[in-house]
């Protein structure tokens, strides 16, 4: 790494301010003003629109296996979603996914 200390601090400061402004943007500027109905409709899907797309590559090409497809991780991910949809409970879904992951890793270690 060939940066002067001041340059590193500049990066940190601009990233800090920039990230804050991104997070503050709509929440700060719109506040109490009403938003158009179609925008509200779009925004209702934000969590299911962002997180699955963020996680999918990590499931198919995990960083820990250097991007090699790992059937155990895929099955654990599917188990998590199935338990979550079925029970509508976050903690049960985590337990379901984690148990599947470690059971699968244990099994592959034995075989």
């Amino acid at each position: 790494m060939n940066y002067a200390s001041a340059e590193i601090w500049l990066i940190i400061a601009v990233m800090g301010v920039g990230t804050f402004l991104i997070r503050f943007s709509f929440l700060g500027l719109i506040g109490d003003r009403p938003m158009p109905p179609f925008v509200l409709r779009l925004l209702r899907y934000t969590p299911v629109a962002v997180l699955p797309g963020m996680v999918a590559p990590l499931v198919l090409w995990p960083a820990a296996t250097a991007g090699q497809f790992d059937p155990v991780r895929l099955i654990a991910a599917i188990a998590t979603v199935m338990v979550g949809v079925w029970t509508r409970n976050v903690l049960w879904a985590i337990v379901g996914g984690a148990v599947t992951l470690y059971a699968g890793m244990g099994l592959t270690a034995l075989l």
Partner: protein
Amino acid sequence: MTTSTANPGTRSAYWAGFRDGAPFILMAVPFSVLFGVVATDAGLTLAQAMGFTVLVIAGAAQFAAVQLMVENASIALVLLAALAVNLRMAMYSASLVPYLGPAPLWKRACIAYLNFDQTYITAIARYEARPEMTVPERVAYFFGVATPIAPIWMSMTLVGALVGKAIPEAWALDFIMPIMFLAMVAPMLKSLAHVSAAAVSVSVGLLLVGLPSGTGLLIAAGAAMLTGALVEIWQERRGV
């Protein structure tokens, strides 16, 4: 951020948030330790590593920035790439407006600082499930969720930077993150519109995974939100 002067409703909302945020400690610990290790390995001082964690407080962007700095990228490129990774949070910010818009500006500013994947998804799930919550209760809940996560994220970065050892890969803690996010999203798949949005998000996200710095994710998220809204309208017209 204590609720000592608040009424019982906001106090119980705060502690409900604390409970719902607590499981994320599992996920924050390995990642924050790893960031401390990676940052000091890359040549950052302890103060700089902590500066990242406290001022930026966004895991994925921090890792992206340090990675590019190791490669001696130009400052402009480091900033552009790292901030692009965080752009999804503008969507989070917008989707919180209907729930938190009337809160005082300084509280919205504090929430903005603490608005990352884990706090956002936990809070929005609660707000959707309980439309009767008051705005002060929603604010208290958000702070409650952040309380166990943010200090752990910061202190464990310090531990990683000082000890210099990551948690062994054999523990597969890398996969705690996908499992936790999927576990949060799965109960939200409550209508055809939600399922369609998630399916588009996954397909487009995988298709565009090669695009730099999360731009593929932004396109995937945009397409998925539009899909959700259009399916919802289509279902309303059919009177389902």
